[in-house]
């Protein structure tokens, strides 16, 4: 069917937005709303235009609640600043979080991640600056009804059971149905301990309950602050997988963490913060690519460094551990080898590796400190 062709085309253009159940919903919308009777090429063009319009309107109507197909960032901050007395907790933060992504807010303790989240959730009054949720700068409370959030650590009523806590929050937030709770407890691995008091939970179990809590009513946007804090390695892996899965299902997940590998594993994009300042922002792959390097052992390492340093397309060349480390991709290795060969410096051994977010993070945060 044509609708399915259009769907496939859209899937190629917007792989994330048109994946899974929402993609299927798209197809269903087309099937319900249009009939293509094949009256020649002109009719085809006319129908194609109609299909495009219908696709947009039908999709917005049916999946509009999820904000799918909307390319505006789900979170946008503009010069957001928070000052406590003489301490600048967040300084002039401007960032945007795209829809349907797992987005990392990375920074060491005290870098302003939690304060930023607090401002986005209306818990902390910004000193200056603005922000928008779902493209709206006002009606924060209405926007927050579409958000599931845990700030700093999961805070629940210790005298209630895990199940009762979820039931209470479900009741006050008016999100979902009571029968959803069993499924949520199951999903986060608390099916067996849902009837235990929260005060008896380990930190890891509290984190799991926090995850079940943020999923109440299946919100579009999740804000998670250090979601794996206190978990054992298996639990951490499980939660990271779950968060990844949530993002792949079309939700936007903003994860604040000081754990570099965690953000690297879970997130598509990242904002790096240090001392309340935004240090870097971009997709994780871009950031990693920027730190990609090859390591060479040559017949004359010093000469190799001199030759490669003269090339304007190579950003950084240095000696490290008896090797020449060149900021370059593996694809450029042949060209590097040729250039060195012309100068009678021969490559004996090569290795390459992707950049590590950790290394990048340490470099840029120390740069900030040095300044």
């Amino acid at each position, binding site marked *: 069917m044509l609708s399915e062709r259009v769907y496939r085309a859209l899937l190629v253009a917007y792989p994330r937005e048109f994946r899974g159940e929402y993609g299927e919903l798209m197809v269903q919308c087309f099937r319900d709303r249009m009939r293509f009777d094949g009256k020649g090429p002109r009719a085809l063009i006319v129908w194609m235009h109609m299909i495009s319009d219908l696709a947009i309107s039908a999709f917005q109507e049916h999946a509009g609640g999820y904000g799918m197909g909307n390319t505006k960032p789900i979170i946008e901050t503009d010069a957001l600043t928070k000052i406590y007395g003489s301490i600048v907790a967040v300084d002039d933060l401007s960032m945007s979080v795209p829809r349907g992504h797992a987005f990392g807010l990375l920074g060491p303790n005290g870098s302003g991640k939690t304060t930023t989240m*607090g401002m986005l*959730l*209306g*818990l*902390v*009054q910004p000193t200056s600056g603005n922000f928008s949720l779902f493209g709206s700068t006002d009606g*924060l*409370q*209405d*926007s*927050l*009804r579409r*958000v599931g*959030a*845990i*700030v*700093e*650590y*999961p*805070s*629940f*009523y*210790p*005298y*209630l059971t895990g199940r*009762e806590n979820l*039931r*209470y*929050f479900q*009741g*006050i*937030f*008016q999100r979902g149905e009571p029968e959803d709770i069993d499924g949520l407890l199951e999903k986060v691995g608390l099916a067996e301990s849902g009837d235990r008091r929260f005060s008896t939970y380990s930190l890891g179990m509290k984190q799991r309950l926090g995850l079940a*809590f943020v999923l109440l009513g299946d919100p579009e946007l999740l*804000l998670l602050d250090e979601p794996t804090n206190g978990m054992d390695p298996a639990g951490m892996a499980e939660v990271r997988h779950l968060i990844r899965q949530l993002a792949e299902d079309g939700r936007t997940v903003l994860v604040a963490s000081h754990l570099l590998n965690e953000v690297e594993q879970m997130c598509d994009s990242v904002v790096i913060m240090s001392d309340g300042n935004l240090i870097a922002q971009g997709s994780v792959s871009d950031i990693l690519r920027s730190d990609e390097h090859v390591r060479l052992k040559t017949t004359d390492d010093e000469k190799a460094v001199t030759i490669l340093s003269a090339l304007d397309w190579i950003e950084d060349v240095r000696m490290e551990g008896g090797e020449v480390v060149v900021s370059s991709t593996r694809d450029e290795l042949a060209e590097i080898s040729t250039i060195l060969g012309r100068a009678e410096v021969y490559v004996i051994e090569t290795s390459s590796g992707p950049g590590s977010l950790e290394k990048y993070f340490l470099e840029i945060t120390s740069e900030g400190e040095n300044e």
Partner: protein
Amino acid sequence: MQHTLQLTKWEWFKVRRLRMPWILLAIAVLVSQLGVWVNYLAFHNDDVNILMSGGFSSYSVAWDEPTPGSYTITCSDFVNDRMPPGLDQIPEDRRAELLKEIDAWRTEGVCDRFASRTQLRRGFTLPNSITQSIAIISSFRPIAIGPILIMILAASIVGSEYGYGTLRTVLAGGIGRWKFLFAKMLLLIRMSSDALIVITLVTVASSLAIALISTDDSGGIADSGKWSEVVLIFLKTVYGLLPFISLGVFATVLTTSRGVGITLSVGYFIVESILATLLRLNETLADVADYLLIQAFLSWTTIPSELNSSQALGVFLAILGYTVILVATTAWVFKQRDIAGATGD
């Protein structure tokens, strides 16, 4: 408004699992029943036979002219300030003799014991036992235990949200700050009404129990006071507690701590008592003392009322004013503040 009522319902779902409200209710019920049972025991342990044998004073006069007749007045008549019918038929000299005797009773306090026994009896027979039980909770001097208990409860319910850090969890979900606070206040009003209903029911049970176990005339079920007074003291007490609920919430929001909130609001009692005493030393300022929060509450909830209608209106407005000012200030402070994590208090 509907969502606020929903919030109140869910607040109750949560609060009923706490021990604190039940402990405070138990204290309130125990204190209120102390009045009923202490009255009964005092009455019963007194020499019941005095009453049975007519041991209390009565005075009779008799005459033959123009027609034979007699007239008797008892302590009951005296205490209730009534003269039995037939006073006008008494010959002049005998009437003077009777009035002289009554004057002597007054001077010598002959019927005081009877009056005190009547008062004791009113304390455990319906419906006055209910009025008295509620009055003990609200306006028993010098400590108004009702306001203290409701302030402790208010500070606990609001302060626990700061202590557990759950305020952040709630507000981050899109619940308006004012709405959340208002739901808490509505719950506290409901809980104070419920507590008074429980006190009423327990008092009814106590009075019935006394009626069952009494072997003498002390256990009448419903023969003292008026039911309208029960309704009046109930409504007046609930209204009078509003500023104390507001004060407890205000102190807690201001300090973001349950413990400090309780200390501050209860400490206000002591400060106000001292202030009222000082103000009463000055003739001009003595009237101001009557409109201080606790003084206003005590005079408002005293049954039968000692206030004339203009004083009652003044006290009513004073209570309303305290409530409005405290609620408005609380809302403003709560709106301005950043919400931090668990304080552990």
